[in-house]
């Protein structure tokens, strides 16, 4: 492993020294701010969504600040978030009070050629359909697939673009969601991107190594097809097996979205999710339907959302505290992107 990494860094250093590129892009500054109100029909936090967790409260998401700069073939991205969504709700060590912010992305990239690039640092995960930033999602609450999968991966990766229709990424990563590896550079991952027709892009992802709950392997398909200028269909399917039958999950989510105008769009998320059996104990199964509208005006998006979840094992609570198979919530979020 050490030899491999040393060879990669040596190659990168040599190419940097040879390159005499001086083209400089302006410093890019962008970001977002989000806030929400949620009302759970059982009058208590009930559905296991990563964000929008507070009941009957006008609560904060996060302020997200992104810096990017490219000089010649080299570039960096630094993205910091402040607020519940960007801290304890998406960062493992924030709950211990050691972090007052969250690094979403912090990496450097070098384009060796127009086709081949390498990236090292801490990056948003390449697994899954949904992301931490509310700007990148149509729905405000998040899927079970998102909540249970990796959020970020620190590591080094190489990407080769065969054409606009096909590219391949391979990399070595730390365990999930940590700035510093706790079990060494322990994971290997890859992503094949194919775009069979105009508007349709599919990512086939694999990540194997130290992750949530132990060593395991995730296989993930994330795809979206802009079928017409009004209608878009997305799909995410994933299977995560932790070694020695120690758990994992499997599920799929479908995302049809229809834009009535430039300002108003309606989207549905239908999801099936199941935790793997552990030691003969059957894992919970969930079905979830989320109806979401996006109403845009300039940089501001209002997101009213209705969500209904079901599980036969009654993991939810009724208003009186009794176990229930169903749960529902309404939320209204405001997201401003700049």
């Amino acid at each position: 492993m050490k030899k491999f990494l040393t060879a990669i860094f040596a190659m990168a250093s040599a190419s940097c020294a040879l390159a005499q590129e001086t083209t400089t892009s302006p410093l890019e500054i962008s970001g977002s701010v989000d806030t929400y109100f949620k009302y759970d029909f059982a009058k208590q936090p009930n559905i296991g969504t990563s964000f929008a967790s507070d009941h009957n409260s006008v609560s904060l998401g996060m302020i997200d600040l992104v810096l990017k700069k490219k000089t010649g073939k080299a570039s960096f991205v630094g993205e910091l978030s402040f607020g519940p969504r960007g801290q304890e709700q998406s960062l493992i060590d924030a709950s211990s009070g050691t972090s007052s912010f969250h690094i979403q992305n912090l990496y450097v990239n070098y384009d060796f050629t127009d086709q081949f690039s390498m990236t090292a640092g801490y990056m948003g995960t390449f697994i899954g359909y949904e992301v931490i930033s509310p700007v990148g999602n149509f729905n405000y609450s998040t899927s079970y697939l998102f909540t249970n999968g990796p959020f970020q991966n620190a590591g080094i990766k190489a990407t080769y673009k065969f054409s606009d229709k096909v590219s391949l990424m391979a990399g070595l990563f730390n365990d999930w969601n940590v700035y510093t590896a706790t079990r060494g550079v322990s994971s290997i991952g890859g992503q094949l991107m194919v775009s069979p027709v105009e508007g349709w892009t599919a990512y086939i992802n694999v990540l194997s190594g130290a992750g949530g709950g132990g060593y395991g392997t995730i296989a993930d398909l994330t795809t979206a097809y802009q079928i017409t200028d009004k209608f878009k269909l997305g799909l995410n399917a994933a299977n995560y097996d932790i070694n020695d039958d120690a758990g994992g999950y499997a599920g799929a989510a479908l995302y049809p979205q229809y834009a009535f105008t430039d300002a108003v769009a309606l989207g549905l998320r239908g999801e099936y999710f199941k935790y793997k059996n552990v030691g003969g104990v059957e894992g919970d199964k969930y079905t979830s339907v989320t109806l979401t509208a996006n109403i845009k005006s300039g940089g501001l998006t209002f997101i009213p959302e209705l969500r209904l979840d079901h599980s036969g094992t009654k993991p939810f609570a009724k208003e009186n505290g009794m176990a229930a198979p169903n749960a529902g919530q309404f939320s209204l979020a405001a997201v401003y992107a700049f």
Partner: protein
Amino acid sequence: MRYILAIALSVFVTSLSAQEKQFPKDETGKFIYYKVVDSLVLSKTVLLERAKNFVVSTNKKTMKLESSTDTSILAKGKMIIDKTILVAGHPSGEVSYDFVFEARAGKYRYWLTNFVFIPYQRDRYGNFVPKTTIGSPLEKSADKLNAGSWKDIQTRTYAKVAKFGDSFKKFLATDKKNSEPVKKETVSTKKW
């Protein structure tokens, strides 16, 4: 303090003057940026070679030559539209366009039309990428909620296209790869 006021005033005036400039429409109702330029010094052949060089060499990453004749060239291209305040900002989208160039003795004309805008959004890695593959014609009217931001995109596109047009004119006037053949001056001793 005076410097700050002067800078603020110049930014304000610049933004006001930029807002005034919008694309005119052609006979079919599409936005067009159309220029006729007198060029008495350069021949038609040299103009055409320089225009072709501008497309296939200088702007090879953003333009693609579609066809050419002995008097014209047709190309397609795209440009990134930035949302910039002073030195900082980020891309807000890209505009694709058709580029037509025609040359005659003593003058040439060029125009850009068929503008289609595709908005960008930030991806999971913090990079701005196209949000969709199906763009919107730049001349379309926006609904009330987004009229302001759409007009801003039209204005910024005009400014970028005007800058592109200026660079094209300058290139045609100064490109040294395709120069007029130099006439050798010799002294004749036969005629006098």
